[in-house]
């Protein structure tokens, strides 16, 4: 069993995560309705028991979901496992998903929660790896083709040097290009908290990268 699968088995089934997922479904009301008729039809079909239609949603969102997970856990294998678990979890709870809403924010929220749990688990139980985080993180950079570029490397270094939530919020905003409200919903935070994290992160990034944009 892979690391992420172990985490999933141990933590994701907990009531806290279930609550978050239920909250996530309820919270999606503020997001504009899906304007993709194919997606809407696929969701309705899955709700009516046609598991085959889920492929449409998996194909559409898998790439982005893996990217979000990778940005948080910085490990390709774990990110793929987490993305897989996120889609299975979404399928299991699709009955609670409101028809007409876009599927994206919902699956992004699920994968973000799973990834944050994986990260917490890793911090709690794998101190020995955290102490060696630098070389591990550097190895994972091989996953990014953009790393050949000095500018990208500097930006990635700067984002990765940020502490905990600032790093994740900055990554979701800068790399994944989500808006504040979307990040807030994905992470179960208020928009104000996201703005605050981002503001602090922005200051630190400006300090570190000022020479790039003179």
């Amino acid at each position: 069993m892979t690391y992420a699968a172990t985490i999933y088995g141990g933590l994701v089934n907990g009531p806290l995560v279930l609550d978050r997922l239920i909250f996530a479904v309820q919270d999606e009301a503020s997001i504009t309705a899906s304007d993709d008729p194919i997606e809407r039809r696929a969701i309705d079909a899955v709700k009516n028991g046609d598991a085959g239609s889920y492929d449409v949603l998996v194909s559409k969102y898998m790439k982005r979901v893996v990217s979000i997970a990778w940005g948080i856990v910085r490990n390709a294998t774990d990110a793929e496992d987490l993305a897989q678990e996120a889609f299975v979890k979404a399928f299991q709870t699709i009955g609670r998903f409101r028809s007409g809403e876009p599927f994206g924010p919902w699956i992004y929220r699920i994968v973000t929660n799973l990834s944050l749990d994986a990260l917490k688990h890793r911090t709690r139980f794998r101190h020995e790896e955290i102490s060696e985080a630098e070389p591990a993180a550097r190895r994972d950079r091989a996953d990014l083709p953009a790393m050949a570029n000095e500018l990208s490397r500097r930006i990635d270094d700067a984002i990765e040097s940020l502490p905990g939530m600032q790093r994740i919020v900055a990554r979701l905003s800068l790399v994944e290009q989500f808006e504040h409200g979307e990040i807030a919903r994905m992470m179960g935070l208020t928009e104000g908290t996201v703005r605050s994290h981002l503001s602090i992160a922005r200051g630190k990034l400006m300090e570190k990268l000022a020479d790039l944009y003179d």
Partner: protein
Amino acid sequence: MTDEQFFERLRDDARPLRYEADDVALTRLAARVRERVAAEPTVAQLLARWFRPVAVSLATLALVATLSVQWYERNQQQPVTLDAAMSTDAVEISVDGNTYTLGQ
């Protein structure tokens, strides 16, 4: 350069840092999800899994109760035997204008 300009340029430059899983990985992941989802019971199936034994138990109980009631009622309505009738009811016999009562 203002803060906003700095952040906008940073956003543009950071976009390529998005992790792009290759097509092979995406296909493999989609296949794994498909496999797990196909094995996953739907809500209706889960409910059916719970309700089916409950429904069978209730039906059995109802059947046993019906049979018991019927059996009890049939026993209650059985015809009175001669012994029973004699022990409860008086029998009157008339001979030569005289009436004799038996069983009291």
